[in-house]
């Protein structure tokens, strides 16, 4: 009787909220204990492994050995939408893809957890570099740092513009 009443309680708790909170707490602890820079390094490794996995999934599903430029653009937007992000392409050319994001997959749990942005950087960087041979991901604006939207540039070639931009480089492994 009482168990049924509990099921109807309006609580902000489900698996998704739980996992997001878990990630927020883990990254928060990591940042506090070893510092933001070091935490970003660790999250980069995780991000790269996730990126490798997602890249393999898209390649297998699309039955291709390497994603094309268009497929890369669509993969970056699609993967985020699947995990509750709201990414969209602002511009795309042979040198770079500029993406916007209105909603972070981590929701409001990302605020003040900029190390978590390394997930996006590494997932985007790994997928792009594995298929394009090179990528440099620059996080110009992020919800984590309090901006209303994210603005992310994925450089596809190593040139003067990409050199001047602050970001992380990724190469085909």
């Amino acid at each position: 009787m009482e168990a049924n009443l509990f099921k109807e309680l309006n609580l902000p708790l489900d698996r998704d909220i739980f996992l997001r909170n878990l990630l927020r707490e883990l990254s928060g602890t990591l940042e506090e204990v070893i510092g933001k820079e070091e935490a970003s390094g660790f999250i980069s490794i995780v991000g790269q492994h996730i990126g490798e996995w997602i890249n393999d999934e898209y390649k297998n599903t699309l039955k291709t050995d390497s994603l094309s430029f268009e497929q890369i653009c669509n993969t970056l937007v699609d993967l985020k939408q699947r995990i509750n992000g709201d990414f969209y392409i602002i511009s795309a050319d042979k040198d770079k893809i500029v993406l916007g994001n209105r909603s972070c997959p981590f929701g409001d749990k990302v605020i003040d957890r900029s190390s978590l942005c390394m997930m996006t950087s590494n997932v985007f960087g790994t997928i792009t570099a594995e298929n394009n041979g090179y990528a440099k991901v620059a996080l110009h604006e992020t919800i984590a740092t309090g901006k209303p939207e994210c603005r992310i540039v994925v450089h596809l070639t190593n040139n003067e513009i990409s050199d001047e931009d602050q970001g992380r480089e990724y190469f085909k492994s």
Partner: protein
Amino acid sequence: MQPSDFQIFADALPEALILLSGDGSVLSTNKCAKRFLSNRFNSIEQLKSLNDLVNNDPEEIKKSLRAWSRSRTPIPAVISWKSEKEFVDSNWRCQAFMIEPAVKNNPAQLIIRCIPGRGQLSEFTLLNAELEKTQNTLKTLLNTREALEKEHELATVTLKCIGDAVITTDNIGNIESLNPVAEALTGWTNKEALGKPSCEIFNIISEITREPSPDPIQRSLKENIIIELGNHTILISKDGTEYVIEDSVAPIRNKNHEIIGTVLVFHDVTAKRLALRQLEYLALHDTLTGLNNRHYFEQELFKAVDLAKRGTLVFALLYIDLDEFKAVNDTAGHSVGDNLLTEVSQLFSSRLRRGDTLARLGGDEFGVLLQNINKEQIEKTAESYKQALNDFQFTWKDKMFDINSSIGVTIIDNNINTAAEALRQADVACYVAKQKGRNRLHIYAPKDDRKAMQLGEVSLISKLNNALKNDSFILYFQPIIDSKNIKTNYFEVLLRLKDDDSIITPNIFIPVAERYAIMPKIDKWVVVQVIKLLEQKQYANCKFSINLSGASFEDEDIITFLSKKIKNNTALSESISFEVTETAAVTHIEGTADFMHSLLPYGVKFALDDFGTGFSSFAYLKHLPVDLIKIDGVFVKDIAHDPADQAMVRSINNIAHSLNKKTIAEYVENEEILDILKDIGIDYFQGYHLGKPDTLDKHLVFEEVKLA
């Protein structure tokens, strides 16, 4: 990059750098990395691949190699380094990154960078280690605190419960604490005394001079040593009560050996001191008359003989025997006889000159030691004692008794060698005076010896010596009945001297044997005979209580003999026990206690005989390890008709039981007495009603008939 180029720039760097190909082959290491690897591996020449260096799973390494190949920015390298050596410096943080090939299309290379001072997850490790350390410290602190609290509680409870008084002071001698016993003895409460100078609270004087004693606390602080209080210290409490105390003060030092205070521990020995004084008094005085006793008199006589031998002084010894005392005792009773003795004592005491010694030597015999007297005065003085008694009339219930005396006199000059000789001469002279018709005095002359020998105790001594030589003493046995056991196998051993066709009883020969110091020999003879009996099968189950005289307790020969016998046959301690009279025990208290303690380890039991008539004091029971108290028969024989006697027996029995000692009542002469004694709770009975002194065989035959 060529390995040689790598080394040129990398050797100069302070970080350990390992150059790897994309597949994990080790291409080169800089100097610092060589040192880093040498600390872990016996030979670094053999290390060809990253998998040779690490514990990580090869698949995991493959994945990591791909991740590192992707990034020119150093990213954390999660590496678990192998080690072939026992000590490993694990505090390293590793990162890895890719370096682009100088020639396009050549494979990329990787560099692993090991930064000293911080290892992978070192912050976690450090944090955890720190946390663990803090927790351990906290735990230790908590445990220590708990242990300290327990210690403190224990110390406080101990101090409160301890029977000794304890005072602690600070390092200048001001009071810090008093335990309850210290509060009671000083009359100050802990609160009142706090911070006051110790001398104000611990106010002590010398028992002898009554002058203030030096403050032991200040002395202990000054000299940094343990100070024992003097033997005669009296503590005066706040209300003026005085306590005789004993014990010590010790400085309290901290771990650097600096004095931080003192602890004074003392206890009240007033009762002990009074008991000791009482014992000293009892040992040297006659309780009935308050005069000195024979023991004291002999000590004084010994000193007198010593002085006389040097020719410095002449003494005289008067041996006074009351002629009509027996008549008073027989017609008016013992208590009237006791009154007579007390009045005569007062009469004699009033005649003493300064330096003279008067003592009751036993029964109706008195001794006077006249000091520094010339031969002309001796007879005159002795005569005055006789005359004083002639003039004295003792009255009881309108009946008057004329009391006379026979006085033996001996002169103690340099012709006398020992105190015993002086006493014997005076005794002989007294004997002669009696022979001449009583109420007269006689001064000893050597020819008196023969006369005495013919008729008196000298002949008795000869008989005693002969009996020892020829085994002509006779042993009689009187049963002692256990209130809880119907079987009779416990007997008091009694001694008789055979004299032609008659028997001489111990009350005749023992005083003489004691005077001539042959009692230890007689005691030894009895013990030997009893041991012989026990060796015979028919007597093996019997138990015997043997009387020992006080003199035996100070006789080395008999002590050694008994110890040896019992050590060689420990079963003897089950079969024989010893009796000593209350008077003998107290007058030889030290020797008696030593003797008893020497045989206690073998389980030998001791009984105190004739209890209640001697000193009527339980004080010395604490000093003598006796197991049985034999209540004197004078309290028992009239117990059925005398409530005072019954109360006396009941109280002796109660006190004895409370001291874990058993009781024996003697003079059980009829069933009525026995019933009363059973009702009181006496443990053993002895008396004519239960069995007269007789030969052991007769008792055992009777026992067989009784049981059949």
